[in-house]
């Protein structure tokens, strides 16, 4: 059975590029436009991995991460951050909030799939 990935980004083009890459590798992809949308979808779907941006309207990626980690079903689910930001301070915040890894945009499809393969098992 295909594993499901929740891809969260307010940029439609990034969501489409992520979905194109992941679907091509056989994953099911659920798309969310911001943290709030992702939280709603995370509650109503069984997800194997979350891939989220940081800077988004309504709810940012760090808040989403924090809230997801409070849910019993998301305590051990890999959550990867995919963002333009690469500063040590924000990375440390992500790490403290429970992120599994940090990927700086732009992503390379092969490398993204390698990382996902590694953390999703």
């Amino acid at each position, binding site marked *: 059975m295909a594993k499901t990935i929740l891809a969260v980004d307010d940029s439609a083009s990034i969501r489409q590029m992520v979905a194109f890459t992941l679907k091509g590798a056989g994953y099911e992809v659920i798309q969310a436009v911001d943290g709030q949308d992702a939280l709603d979808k995370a509650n109503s779907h069984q997800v194997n991995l979350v891939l989220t941006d940081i800077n988004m309207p309504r709810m940012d990626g760090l808040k989403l991460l924090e809230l997801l980690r409070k849910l019993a079903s998301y305590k051990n689910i890999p959550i990867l951050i995919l963002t333009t930001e690469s500063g040590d301070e924000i*990375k440390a915040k992500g790490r403290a909030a429970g992120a599994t890894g940090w990927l700086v945009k732009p992503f390379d499809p092969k490398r993204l799939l390698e990382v996902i393969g590694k953390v999703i098992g």
Partner: protein
Amino acid sequence: MSETQSTGINKIKDSASKKTLEYADCIYRNAEADDFFINIKGELNQVDRLVSDAVNNLVVNFKFISELTKSHHEMVLAIEKLAAPEGSKPILELLEKQMVVADKIEQELEMAVTSLQFGDLVTQLLAHTSRQVEMLSIELQRVDRQSGWGKTSNKKMLKRVHEGISEAVAKTTIKSTRKPVVQQGMQMGDIELF
């Protein structure tokens, strides 16, 4: 009314008129500055719309090319199966060449996935710049309101203008959020697993 009195009144009238003009000029300058900042914001929004439009079109083209490539790949495989029993060497060689072409197109499409992310980076940078322009505009207006330019000499006024601009820039810098995009090119970003 004596001539001296008349001259005095005229002087007062001139002075009042000059002050009114200075005040009007000040308002005019503020309106001009407002227009200038509105224009900058308008142009930044225009760039954002153009980039978004171009990216949307490119993504549609990308998907279409990707679908065509898949169909082409499947077609080549189907022909290969049909041709295999015959063992026709020229056909098999041609199909092999077609497979090489299909693989190369796939590689190029993968590279395009990375390049097409430029829209997101540009949009974030534009939003950041737009916010800074708006904050600078607000700070300059505040400095302008507090300064009372009309009460000072030209030299002092110029000094105040310089100080006011520096103050506005400094405050904008302090209020600015961190720059969301530091990338200088479209090379793949770093990956770190915690």
